[in-house]
């Protein structure tokens, strides 16, 4: 199962991703999910980013809206535009969920 998952919160929503088995998983940080890639808390980046075999994306508009620079976000995460998201949804994944 190829899933692209939008994570729009910082403090919750991610736990479900620990349980679903996928053959291909993309996590897109949008909205306040952006804080996962923008800040470190107590010196540690978000543990979510340690998840293996996941492609991480973050929406450029939402990165900049929150005061972060594209070049400043965690290196494991690819900045994407709304246009990129459309291609990911149609071409790279089969099911789309919003957390």
């Amino acid at each position: 199962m190829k899933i692209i998952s939008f994570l729009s919160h910082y403090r919750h929503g991610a736990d479900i991703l620990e349980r679903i088995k996928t053959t291909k998983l993309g996590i897109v940080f949008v909205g306040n999910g952006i804080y996962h890639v923008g800040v470190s808390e107590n010196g540690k980046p978000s543990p979510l980013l340690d998840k293996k075999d996941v492609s991480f994306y973050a929406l450029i508009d939402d990165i900049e809206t929150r005061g972060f620079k594209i070049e400043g976000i965690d290196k494991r995460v690819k900045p994407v535009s709304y246009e990129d998201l459309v291609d990911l949804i149609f071409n790279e994944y089969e099911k789309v969920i919003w957390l």
Partner: protein
Amino acid sequence: MKKKIAFVIKSLPYNRETSRLGLTHAIASQSVDVYLDEGDMIEPVVCFIGDGVLNCLKDQQCMKHYNNTSMETHIKNALLVDLQVYICKEDIERFGLTKDDIVTDAQEIGADKIAEIVPFDKIQGIMEEVDHLQFF
């Protein structure tokens, strides 16, 4: 042609409309034929996982206190129209609940369908099998 859609409810009831909208959208599949060609149909499956299983507690008195339909009643309505409903066993157990605490039938309103308490693996299988997946 048949298309399967899973409505996966992971949210607590009552402090958002989220879980209720999950069920009402699933139930709406009963009248979708008017929009579809002869022979086409949608098969909805409702799954409660995570905190979402707390939607399934018995004796919710939302009508008494807030004059609103409870999630319990919505689940019974779903069973009445023969929707397939699965509730995650591991999550029920995590909250220290048993089958007796959970709405699994609606015989009093004439429903034949039973909600099944199943391991997460079964729900994983459903998520893989359906055409579209929607989280609430």
